[in-house]
């Protein structure tokens, strides 16, 4: 019975993913007929309007792929953190990785002077610049190294969680100091970056994002057995033959990789990482990570694609930042699902 429900969920979600993809590519300021989109995507034949194929190929398709990658990566990272820390509120940001990336970006934007930033932003938009992406990667990597060094000295995952939160808090304080002494234009640039954006990741950047997220997702899936064992707590996991410290290092590395690279290219995108694992558990009614990880990928991708569609605000030129939409749309959705399905109570974690 359970198995058939799972198959049903899976088919439904796959259909939804295709639908969300098409919807996302067709949404935007320029209205392109659906059959033209399909023609551009699949036949390579020239479209009725030459600019349409540029819009689809160079803007909308990369944006949809970015949304799928970011949705997968953030959801799986969130799932890993929720299992590692046995905490329903954990997300990929709890390790301080996102904050580290933000610090890197802030350092470039706020101290580099407006010359570099203005150049970078004019060139590729606030989220797509190599400079910003590299700065974010360096920041995230340093936060990850710090977390790893500290985690080697700890036996307890809860301490690890606290340390991650502290690193995040210190990092944000540093950014605040920087903002306080910067001029308003630079602060605004930085603020724009923190709103997150799925657009602007194209070409080489998209391949790098795809490669790293792919590696991270495969590593996460391969560690699903370890994650399953950690569901019972560290002591039981150890008694079943898991080397807890090594498992923690692998999981921290994977999540850092996913969260770091996504934050670097898209800015900090909240909410997806917390919410999607809960949705995946609800849909598939299981705790096995072999199933939950692909489920998170599917649901995360769908959710972020839909959020991106909404952010285009059909019929207008305005594009709302993705970070606002994920929270505005997603949070009520999760509340609704949790209230309707009490069996996945937060109590279960206590």
């Amino acid at each position, binding site marked *: 019975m359970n198995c058939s429900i799972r198959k049903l969920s899976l088919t439904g979600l796959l259909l939804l993913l295709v639908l969300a993809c098409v919807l996302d590519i067709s949404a935007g300021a320029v209205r392109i007929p659906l059959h033209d989109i399909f023609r551009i995507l699949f036949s390579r034949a020239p479209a009725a309007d030459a600019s349409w194929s540029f819009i689809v190929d160079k803007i909308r398709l990369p944006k949809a792929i970015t949304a799928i990658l970011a949705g997968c990566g953030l959801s799986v990272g969130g799932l890993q953190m*929720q*299992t590692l820390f*046995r905490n*329903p509120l954990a997300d990929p940001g709890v390790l301080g990785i996102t904050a580290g990336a933000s610090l890197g970006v802030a350092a470039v934007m706020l101290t580099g002077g407006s010359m570099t930033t203005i150049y970078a932003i004019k060139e590729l938009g606030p989220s797509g610049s190599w400079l910003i992406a590299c700065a974010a990667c360096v920041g995230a990597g340093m936060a990850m190294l710090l977390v790893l060094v500290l985690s080697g000295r700890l036996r307890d995952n809860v301490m690890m969680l606290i340390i991650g939160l502290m690193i995040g808090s210190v990092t944000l304080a540093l950014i605040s100091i920087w903002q306080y002494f910067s001029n308003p234009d630079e602060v605004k640039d930085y603020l724009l970056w923190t709103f997150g954006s799925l657009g602007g990741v194209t070409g080489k950047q998209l391949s790098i994002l795809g490669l790293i997220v792919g590696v991270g997702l495969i590593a996460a899936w*391969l560690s*699903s*057995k370890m994650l*399953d*064992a950690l*569901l*019972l*707590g560290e*002591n*039981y996991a*150890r*008694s*079943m*033959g*898991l*080397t807890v410290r090594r498992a923690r290092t692998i999981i921290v590395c994977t999540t850092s990789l996913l969260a770091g690279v996504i934050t670097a290219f898209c800015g900090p995108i909240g909410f997806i990482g917390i919410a999607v694992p809960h949705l995946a*558990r609800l849909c598939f*009614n*299981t*705790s*096995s990570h*072999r199933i939950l990880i692909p489920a998170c990928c599917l649901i995360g991708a769908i959710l972020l694609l839909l959020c991106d569609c909404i952010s285009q605000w059909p019929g207008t030129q305005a594009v709302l930042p993705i970070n606002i939409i994920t929270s505005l749309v997603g949070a009520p959705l999760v509340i609704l699902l949790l209230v309707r399905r009490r*069996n*996945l*109570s937060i*109590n*279960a*974690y*206590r």
Partner: protein
Amino acid sequence: MSSPLLYAKNLSTGYHSGGRKIVVSAGLPELEIDRGRMICLLGANGSGKSTLLRTLAGLQPALGGTVAVGGATHLSPADLARRISLVLTDRVVGTNLDVYSLVVLGRYPWSGWLGGLDAADRSAVGRAMDAAGIMDLQHRKVHTLSDGESQKVMLARALAQDTPLLMLDEPTAHLDLPSRIRLMRLLHTLTREMNKGILLSTHELDLALQVADELWLLQSGGVLHKGAPEDMVLEGAFEAAFAGEDVVFDRATGVFRIHPEGGPAIRLEGDGTLAFWTRRALQREGFTVIREETADRVVRIIEEKSAPRWVLETAGASRSYTSIGALLRELK
């Protein structure tokens, strides 16, 4: 198979805290667990039972001495997990776990690298659930289980791990009396039928005296007495262990006495079940029950065909009662 399942020598247990060693038990005697033996580890709260158990199980390193499992020391965590399975006091908070999946986790040391199960794994899970009597629970979510059910499920998980040695940390805590007895009986059966070695820590002295093949009585500081339960009672190990505390072990009945001795003496004549319960009642009322003829009050039990009678003789007077309750009301 000559080497015991577990053998520990010169063991010191404890933990590191801030670069310092905190010793819980030092210089423990040689400890040995063989196949088919059920060993109960007793000791007051804070005497180091859990620390000893965790050290023997390899969850925490020993501060000194060696632990050999199946004759081998320094086993890898994976090898250790194939020889020792554990039931701990940690509460399992289910992240959507159902009972079947939890028991399946017990196959962790044996299953494939993605956690896939083969036919042997599946049959081991089935046998474990059957032995623990939780077949009807398998689709329930873990967080909906009662304490007793939860304990049985954790036992099933340990059984699915299919190890010769099983260690349980206070498995009877939080259980009602029938569940405690059932669990102890089940564990005892496992040692006899599946030839497993079992070490469990408990506060249930009366149950331990009934089921254990061997008792380990741990006192704080690392003094550990061990032996067959009956020998330990007769040698006065329990009186010695709890000397200085305000509880008294009654060697004659094998239980700790709640009511302190030292009240007025009363002589009890009679035997069998009636005498046993009359004695308990008198002790509760603060009397010191003796057999000698020095007491000025005597309770004599007269067993008649229809119903027993209790005769109370005080300074020449003699009155008869039809129940212990009536007798006690008079004595007050």
